[in-house]
């Protein structure tokens, strides 16, 4: 199946535009594509006529020229007819927004449309979904644009069974400054399912990290998913919720009761190097981190701080996560010390965490980061930056970003207060260093890379 017309349409039809209800999903979708996106869009309603000042087509078959994407937003019982119209007319693919299928006892109707599409090799997303959000290009969400927090184009592909989780996660991603390559709510996933999306995003050059919100897989579908994920080089992050119906089945053995559905899910993901996020906060931190550093580390962290308290807190969090904060060799300490300015050489603590004290300046950070970048005992650097003292300039982020470029070691920074220190934070982020607004978040960003290692 060719997904290109679905995800990169040049032309679209919105089926089900209402003449009486301006808040009808089809109208919201038609209006936003028509007014805001570089996609030619046609309204469709069997009554024909005019909508605003545009011609309404009675059927997709009447539209002159090729239609890449059809958005179907009609009553469930009318969907098969609309779908048949699309298939007959050579449409490239569809998003079926309509509800009223398997989720409300009409599994038969859902099977019918899936069967039609399979037979015609016709890709569709849904039903019962928000569909596709492609930043700056188009979206099929029946939510007015001004109500959405709209992430910038970026390199995270996000696929969610739930539309609500998807829209809400777009808020978290945006707060983190994280951009999306593509976001898809797959709803009842009657045809296109997680594994299909994984295969698509693995080949998508704009996507570097692939994230999922999964409620459950079908029979043996989890096996196919993890086997595919293990074979692709991009990090895959999964947030899991819910349990399968089988979870409530009476169990007759120790193994069945010890290896419950979620336990199996979690262990099997780790076995295949898939990064499981346990909540939305982890999901956001993991995607941010892996979008900069899409690879695995062992998790030996060099911590640099200007506050002993922050160093201790970060060390505790790292220990809880199972990350190591190893002691530094004398050679590394000597190298750091040699690079420090005279006024802090005597007061800085060069154990790990390396505490440069509140008297440090940009050059001291550079010395410490540079030496740790070469230290064999650490494979990742965690910088706790409190930009309250005058020795720290707004150029620091850009100046420190060479660590990864030179040594290959990922650097993650914690900087408080996103608004006040925006220029400093952008100095890091624009130079490929992820920044967290909490110590926990920074530690999770390190943890993300460790969880990439198959366990």
């Amino acid at each position, binding site marked *: 199946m060719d997904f290109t017309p679905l995800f990169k349409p040049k032309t679209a039809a919105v089926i089900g535009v209402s003449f009486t209800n301006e808040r009808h999903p089809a109208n919201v979708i038609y209006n936003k594509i028509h007014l805001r996106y570089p996609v030619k869009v046609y309204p469709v309603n069997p009554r024909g006529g005019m909508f605003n000042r545009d011609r309404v087509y009675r059927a997709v078959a009447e539209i002159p020229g090729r239609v890449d994407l059809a958005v179907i937003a009609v009553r469930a019982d009318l969907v098969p007819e609309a779908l048949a119209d699309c298939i007959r007319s050579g449409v490239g693919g569809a998003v079926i927004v309509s509800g009223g299928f398997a989720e409300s006892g009409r599994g038969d109707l859902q099977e019918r449309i899936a069967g039609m599409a399979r037979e015609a090799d016709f890709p569709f997303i849904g039903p019962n979904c928000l569909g596709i959000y492609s930043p700056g290009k188009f979206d099929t969400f029946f939510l007015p644009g001004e109500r959405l927090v709209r992430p910038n184009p970026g390199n995270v592909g996000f696929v969610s069974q739930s539309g609500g989780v998807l829209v809400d996660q777009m808020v978290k991603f945006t707060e983190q400054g994280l951009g999306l390559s593509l976001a898809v709510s797959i709803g009842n996933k009657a045809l296109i399912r997680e594994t299909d999306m994984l295969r698509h995003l693995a080949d998508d050059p704009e996507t570097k990290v692939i994230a999922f919100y999964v409620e459950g897989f079908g029979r043996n579908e989890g096996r196919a998913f993890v086997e595919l994920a293990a074979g692709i080089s991009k990090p895959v992050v999964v947030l899991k919720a819910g349990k399968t119906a089988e979870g409530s089945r009476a169990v007759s053995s120790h193994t*069945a009761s010890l290896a419950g559905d979620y336990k199996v899910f979690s262990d099997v993901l780790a076995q295949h190097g898939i990064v499981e996020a346990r909540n939305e906060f982890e999901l956001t931190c993991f995607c941010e981190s892996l979008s900069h550093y899409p690879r695995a580390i062992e998790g030996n962290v060099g911590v640099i701080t200007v506050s002993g308290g922050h160093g201790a807190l970060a060390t505790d969090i790292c220990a809880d996560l199972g990350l190591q904060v190893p002691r530094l060799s004398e050679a590394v300490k000597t190298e750091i010390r040699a690079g420090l300015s005279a006024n802090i050489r005597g007061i800085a603590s060069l154990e790990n965490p390396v505490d440069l004290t509140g008297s440090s300046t940009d050059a001291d950070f550079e010395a410490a980061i540079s030496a740790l970048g070469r230290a064999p005992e650490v494979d990742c650097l965690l910088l706790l930056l409190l930009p309250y003292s005058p020795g720290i300039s707004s150029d620091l982020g850009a100046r420190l970003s060479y660590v990864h470029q030179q040594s290959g070691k990922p650097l993650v920074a914690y900087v408080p207060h996103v608004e006040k220190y925006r220029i400093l934070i952008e100095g890091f982020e624009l130079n490929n260093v992820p920044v967290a607004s909490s110590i926990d978040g920074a530690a999770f960003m390190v943890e993300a890379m460790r969880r990439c290692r*198959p366990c």
Partner: protein
Amino acid sequence: MLSAEIVDIIAAARDHGWVLEPEALRLLRAAGVPVPRFAWATSETQAREAAAGIGYPVVAKVVSPKVMHKSDVQGVQPGIPDAESLASVYDRFSRLPGFDGVVVAEMLSGRELIVGAKIDFQFGPVILLGIGGTAVEIYNDTATRMAPLKARDVESMLTCLRGSRLLTGYRGFAAVNIPKLTEMMLAFSDVVMELGDRIDSIDLNPVFCSPERCTVADARIVLAPQG
């Protein structure tokens, strides 16, 4: 390919839906999973002969299609020192429902582990390894992996257990034989893959691991409902 012996054992167990212990042990032995020296005795004389061959002390366990959980009916007697004690245990077991003889087996020692398999709805055959003993469900210290296992998977399962040091050596306790454990896990994984949808789940509980060997002391194979 499953051997004819294994196919026959599964076919014979269809009626009650699970494989009786002596048959389960025979199945595992055929698959290259280490089991103790044992015999299925259906008379007291046979039991005494088996015990003499194995050497005292022995363990005796009731065999009955009506008793899946033997310890619930006091159907397991470890540490039987002599023929006289064995006779009285045989007599006691013979009064249990569905009595169909006893398993007489050598006594094993070492760390107790639980090893299991189930056919997971989402992931198919999965294998479990955990710290065993009577409190197995209290501590729930287990690791699960999708089958077929690789040696690397067994290694990571051991690392992931909270009680991993119980197996790799802790204070006065010697490390268990990790290569033997790995060998056993891989052989078990292979037969689970072969059995596939024929089974619902398998418990090997306990498995005794010592510095010398890893041996399945008891096995329960629950078959999938026939559809």
